[in-house]
């Protein structure tokens, strides 16, 4: 395998990149590609990649087929019927058009990279923070993609969340305490937990009773306190300072387990 081209196996993103590189390196007129020569070089590259165990994508194989097709078509004599109709299209034309278009976008990408290079050396220092009062949540600017992403993340989280079997008959007060604990741990330290909403999620009477008793137990143990933000507002539970110590050993929970048996 002697070759005029001595390419160390470069990484090409796709077959168009490889072809363009072959054409430009050899200063071939892109509108008059010597298809036999280029096809040979293309196959040489593919063979080398195979030897080096580099996986070329399916697009490379497809392009190889295209090249062979063009090559064979060029070997055929001109179709007399088509010739009568006017000039038969050069079998290379479609490929040339694609290559030229592809090259334009490569140039555009390069231009963008240069523009970016300038931007990397320019700094801005907006001071808008000084004019936004602290109580205003600046938030994150939101696009449609953020919306799908947020939904995807919510579902992902739901998938990974431990499941508490509350539908069964054997849901206990201790289970409910651990369930409440997990809810508290999933919200921020000072975040209130609105208890009515958790009641709404229970699917059985028994679960609701267990939950109610669990809340009372936790209040008794001073792990949480019951509060109401405003008159007739939603009843919420708030974590007390001793929350962590109450649950530290797991003892109170097992003790309660016995109590209710």
């Amino acid at each position: 395998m002697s070759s005029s081209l001595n390419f160390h196996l470069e990484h090409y993103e796709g077959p168009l990149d490889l072809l363009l590189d072959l054409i430009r390196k050899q200063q071939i007129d892109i509108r008059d590609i010597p298809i036999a020569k280029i096809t040979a070089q293309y196959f040489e590259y593919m063979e080398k990649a195979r030897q080096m165990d580099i996986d070329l994508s399916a697009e490379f194989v497809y392009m190889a087929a295209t090249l062979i097709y063009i090559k064979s078509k060029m070997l055929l004599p001109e179709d007399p019927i088509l010739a009568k109709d006017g000039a038969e299209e050069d079998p290379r034309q479609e490929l040339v058009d694609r290559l030229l278009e592809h090259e334009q976008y490569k140039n555009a990408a390069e231009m963008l990279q240069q523009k970016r290079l300038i931007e990397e050396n320019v700094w801005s220092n907006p001071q808008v923070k000084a004019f936004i009062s602290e109580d205003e949540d600046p938030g994150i600017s939101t696009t449609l993609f953020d919306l799908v992403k947020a939904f995807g993340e919510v579902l992902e989280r739901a998938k990974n969340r431990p499941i508490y079997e509350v539908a069964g008959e054997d849901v206990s007060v201790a289970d409910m305490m651990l369930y409440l604990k997990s809810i508290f741990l999933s919200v921020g330290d000072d975040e209130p937990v609105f208890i009515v909403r958790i009641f709404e999620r229970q699917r059985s009477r028994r679960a609701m009773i267990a939950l109610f008793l669990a809340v009372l137990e936790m209040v008794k143990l001073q792990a949480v306190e019951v509060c109401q933000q405003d008159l007739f507002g939603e009843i919420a539970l708030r974590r007390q300072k001793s929350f962590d110590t109450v649950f530290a050993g797991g003892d109170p929970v097992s003790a309660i387990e016995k109590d209710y048996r």
Partner: protein
Amino acid sequence: MEDTFASASTPPEAVSADELLTSSAGQAVALSSTDAQLKAVLEAIVYVTEEPLSAIQIADALGEPRERVEKLLELLVGQFDLPEHGVTIREVAGGYKMATKAEHHERVRAFVKSLRPQLKLSLPALETLAVIAYKQPVTAPEILEIRGVQGAGVLKTLLDRKLIATAGRKDVIGKPILYKTTKEFMVQFGLKDLSELPTLKEFEEIRRLALSDEPAASEADQGAAS
């Protein structure tokens, strides 16, 4: 690298203009072109830094004589003090810092306030909105169930912003209120109709491809850099 920026810089003939600066007193001050250039650099530095920097700190970092930097900074302060400027260079905490002038604060603040319409949401609000958009009509307990997190007040925020609206009640125990997204929601997210929402499947597809493309992309990147 240098060449890229050459076009942005000054033509050499314009040097005379550099040297004619207006001092705080309104008199023309002759400044050597290297001084003028250093003063411009100082302006950029004072603009860009968050913490007030002292003349000594700047001079040492630039490797320039302290007195020279001090003098040019003074000149800079004097220039920005002129009423034609809305920003100024203040000497605070032993250093120099750019800031807006107090006399314009009211108009700047009013202006910043007027800019709010751009849609910005907290993460809980965004998540809740996402659940409603994809599961509508949906009740609060259902949203809670899916998100697994208490989102107190978020529904109110979204209702206030008219991104969601109520849509009757669900026929289950307790008859909870159903929520749906609004026309305003579609306007804000540039949707013609709800079918334009990317499906979760499409999102997964994009993400999956991103993961499989990762090594190839970084290789190409290295190739380009070398």
